[in-house]
Structure formats: structure tokens, C-alpha cells
């Protein structure tokens, strides 16, 4: 069922089924509402706009009963038509053609604004995870060792320059990882029980899974709006 915005006394709540959901960012149902709108899982209808009929409009403008009785008394004394004129003026201002009714108004702008903000936050989180996944090495290629020369903290005298210099040593900062086998062989049993199983060579399932996860991460990166990428990059 569609969400329905309820506007009453300049305050909003959201209705769905038997629920009345407050506009509160901590409320779980409100969060679900924003998520459903952001992801297009559900729709939202604007608040009802109630247009009064001529009956209600006239009732609100007729003079009070006390005033009308007063007007009728003085009309009788003075021979005037103030009371009839006043009533006619109200009737003329609100003709019977105004039948009133209820229409559905526009969805308030804050709904889309909050849905957009939620979606941007989600895209940023998904993009961050995808970038992290893509930064991992490709297991079909393996990983090369990275060695850095670092100071040990000791110093010795350089006889040529007669200055104390750092003693350096090589530190492996990234260990090498061999690529996994590109293919694996498996036995495929025959439908005929009297025949031997045959061998089948397939892509290494580890590579298949790695490729699938990388493709999924790349798809997330490709689908991420530039504004979200700029936020990720701190721009």
C-alpha cells in the first residue's frame, strides 16, 4: 500500500495501513519510509487538500445570530434592509456552484530531499566498500613482493665523508603471493553407470569467485554518481 502524507495543523505524519508514522529520524518506520522512497520500492501520495463548499464558506461569514437579530430589529424600526443586504452579500460571495471537495496535494519537497540524502549516504558507503574490494590483489595474477630499505636506528662512521650515517636494511612491506592455478580438473560422473567418469577442466572456482566479486564492485563504482565520488575524495 502507498504511503500517505498527512498534514494537520502545519504538522506532518505518514500513514500506511493501520500505522501512523511520526516524522522522526530515529523512528524505524520513518527510516523505512525514506528508504522505500529513495529506492523506489514504494510510492507516496501527497496530503489531502480539503476545499470547503459554499455551505461551510457562508457559515463562516454570516454575522452572528445576535448581530442578525439586532439588524432585523433596527431594519423594522428604520425601514432599512441592512440584514437582507448583509446575508445576500455573503451568498453572492460564495455561490452554490462552489461544491468543495477533497483533492490530493503535492508531496512536500522535504520527502524527496531526505530520500536523496539517504541515497547519497548509501551510495557513498557502497562505493567505499567497492573501492576497498578492488584494491585487493587479483588472485589469478598473484602479488609481487615489495621491499623497502629502512634505517635500523644504528649509525656508523663513513670513513670517506667522516660523517655518521644510518645503517640500512631491507624490509619486506608486502609479501609475495603466488597466483592460484588457472584451471582445475574435476571428475564428471557418466549418466551410464557402467561408464567411467570423465575428466573436465574448468576455471579455478577461486578465480571465478574473485572475478565475480570484482565485477560486482566495478559495477558499483561505475554506477556511483560523480558527486558521491567527489565526496569520497574529499572534494
Amino acid at each position: 500500500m502507498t504511503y500517505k502524507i498527512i498534514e494537520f495543523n502545519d504538522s506532518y505524519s505518514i500513514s500506511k495501513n493501520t500505522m501512523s508514522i511520526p516524522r522522526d529520524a530515529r523512528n524505524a518506520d520513518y527510516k523505512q519510509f525514506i528508504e522505500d522512497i529513495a529506492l523506489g520500492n514504494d510510492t507516496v501520495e501527497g496530503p489531502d487538500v480539503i476545499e470547503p463548499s459554499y455551505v461551510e464558506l457562508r457559515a463562516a461569514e454570516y454575522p452572528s445570530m445576535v448581530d442578525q437579530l439586532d439588524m432585523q430589529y433596527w431594519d423594522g424600526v428604520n425601514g432599512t434592509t441592512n440584514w437582507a443586504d448583509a446575508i445576500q452579500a455573503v451568498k453572492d460571495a460564495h455561490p452554490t456552484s462552489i461544491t468543495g471537495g477533497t483533492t490530493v496535494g503535492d508531496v512536500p519537497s522535504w520527502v524527496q530531499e531526505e530520500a536523496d540524502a539517504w541515497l547519497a549516504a548509501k551510495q557513498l558507503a557502497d562505493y567505499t566498500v567497492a573501492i576497498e574490494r578492488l584494491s585487493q590483489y587479483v588472485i589469478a595474477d598473484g602479488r609481487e613482493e615489495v621491499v623497502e630499505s629502512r634505517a635500523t636506528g644504528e649509525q656508523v662512521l663513513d670513513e670517506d665523508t667522516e660523517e655518521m650515517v644510518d645503517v640500512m636494511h631491507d624490509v619486506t612491506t608486502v609479501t609475495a603471493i603466488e597466483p592460484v592455478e588457472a584451471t582445475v580438473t574435476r571428475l564428471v560422473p557418466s549418466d551410464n553407470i557402467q561408464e567411467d567418469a570423465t575428466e573436465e577442466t574448468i576455471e579455478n572456482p577461486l578465480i571465478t569467485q574473485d572475478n565475480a566479486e570484482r565485477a560486482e564492485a566495478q559495477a558499483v563504482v561505475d554506477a556511483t554518481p560523480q558527486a558521491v565520488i567527489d565526496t569520497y575524495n574529499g572534494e
Partner: protein
Amino acid sequence: MTVKVHKPKYNLKEKLDSNNLQTGQAGRDTLKSENMRELFSNTGTSRKNILINGGFDVWQRATYFAATSGYFGPDQWFSAGAAAGFIAQRLASGGTEPFASKYYTRVQMASSNTNINQNIEHTGRYMADKYVTLSFWAKSDKPVNWKSKLISGTQTELASRDSYAGMEWTYNEITFPPFSYADWGNDVAKLYFGREFSEENARLDIAEVQLEIGSQATPFERLPIYETLLNCYRYCYVLTDDGSTTNFGIGTVEGTAIAAIGLGNFPVQMYSVPTVATNSGVSFYSPTTGSRGFSVTSNRSSTAQGALFLTITSAGASPGESCSLFNNGSGGKVTFEAKIV
């Protein structure tokens, strides 16, 4: 100056044991304990259960629930990813179970990836950098493996452990390693409890679920029912039909079709401004209109009080007259939900 340190030449525990000395009940019970669980059990000491309603004492919404997702019977516990046919129900202990709780929960799994979860408020600061231990009793209609997971506030799986449920009640104790405050993500974490295997359907009976700080399980903490109720009321509060003439709230008619109703102060401040739902067992009443149907126009509740504006079915009420929402004898319920997500 010379300081001499004298070390005892004997083991105190052995000496006391061998001499069977009376060191007081608590001292004797402490000495004969082989592990923390026995120690806490022997001395009657207990510690705080981080979970709420781990003993399945409170079922405000229902005591039998068939659902596909979302919240179900026991307060605080909800299912996620459940398929049609999933059932959770409250069962009374028969007195032969190896635990003392009055009730336990039966979860009938209809497919793979069926689970129950509890979101825990204010987790990060409380549990950061500490071992936490989960303990529970479990039984199934067939031997199956189950998974227990701790999930961070950002939905990252921090740890997953397999446990086993045989056809007899089995006590399970699982200790999770410490996680930093940053790992927890924010102050809401989730305990996941379920299965991820599609080979077979099974049911799981669960009792006395406890999550506590420390690397060893202690006896299940048995809170007074009013304390568990108050804990649950922070997230769900149900006004229901304790009597056929129950008035859920009173108020004032403000227009011929509009009324404002106050539903009282909540027993404890709720986690968020709650969603309000009424069922068909709730009716509107005013002296002018008599019993009428209604719809909720506006939810004006706060975290401390329930309040509604109603649209009365068919206008005709007199502005200024008093009115009420009452149980019409068909199981009326007014439900305030402030779930943690």
C-alpha cells in the same frame, strides 16, 4: 632499609580443602568451584544480561506468530529474511527442562536463511574491547547446526560461530573476541541467531539466551517481570484489553469530525517517537456520536506521551465535548512501536 617478604609455603586452597575448614558458606562454595559458571552458580552471584527478554517472558504483540519478516512474538526479537511458513510461538516449560524459565520460544524454519535477531542499544561503549559470551539452551527436532553472529551497527559481520542443537536440550556457550568501539560502528549492534543451510527444514527451541561481558558464561540472569517489562516498553508499548470497558485514552472533540485524544504517559521514555497503530477492536466514543469508527489523522506522540488527532467517521460530534478511545470488546489494541534499527 631491608624489606623481607614472606611467602606462604603452602597452597591455601589445598590446606583448607584438606582440613575441611569451615570458612563460611560463600567461602566454601567459592573454593569448590571449578570454573566461573560454577562459581557464580554456587555463590548466587549474577551479572547483567545485555539482551532484553532473553528469557522470552514478554510477548506484547502476540504469543503465536506466522510471518515472513519483521517483528514477531517475543519482544525485542525479530526475524529477517524468513520465508513463508515461518512460525514463532511461546511454549510453557513443562517442569522437566534443564532450565528454570517459565517459557521458551519455538521457531519453525520453513526454508534456508531463517533467523531471529535482537538489536542492542548502547552497545559500542559498553562492549568495546571486551570479550562477550553468548549462552543459551537449544533443542531441535533433528540434529542441526546453527550460527550465532555479532553484527555491527553498520551491518558488518564481526564474528560468526557455529553451534549445535541436538534433539535433547543442549547448553551452548560461545565466546566472541573483543572488538573496538570503531568496529562496533555505532551504538546499535545486532545479535543474529539462526541457520543458513538449505538442506533441510527444522525447528529450533530456544531458552534463556544471555549475552554478557566476560569470557565465560554465568547463570542466566533472572530479572523480576516488571523489570523486563519496563526494558521492553522502551521499544514497544501495547495498550490492550484487560477489561471489556477499557478506555485507552480520553480527549476533547475539536471539530464536528476531529478529536484530540491523549493516551497517557509511557512507563519509560521510548527509544524514538513511536509509530502508532490501532486495530479494529478500538472505537471512538462521545456523548453526541455514541460509538463510532475513526481514522488516525495525525500522530502527535512524543517519546514520553501518546497523543493522536482522529477523524471521526461521519461528522456530528459537538466541539468541546469529552470523548474517548475504548476497547469495543473485539481485542482492541493500541500499539506504540519504537524499534531499534
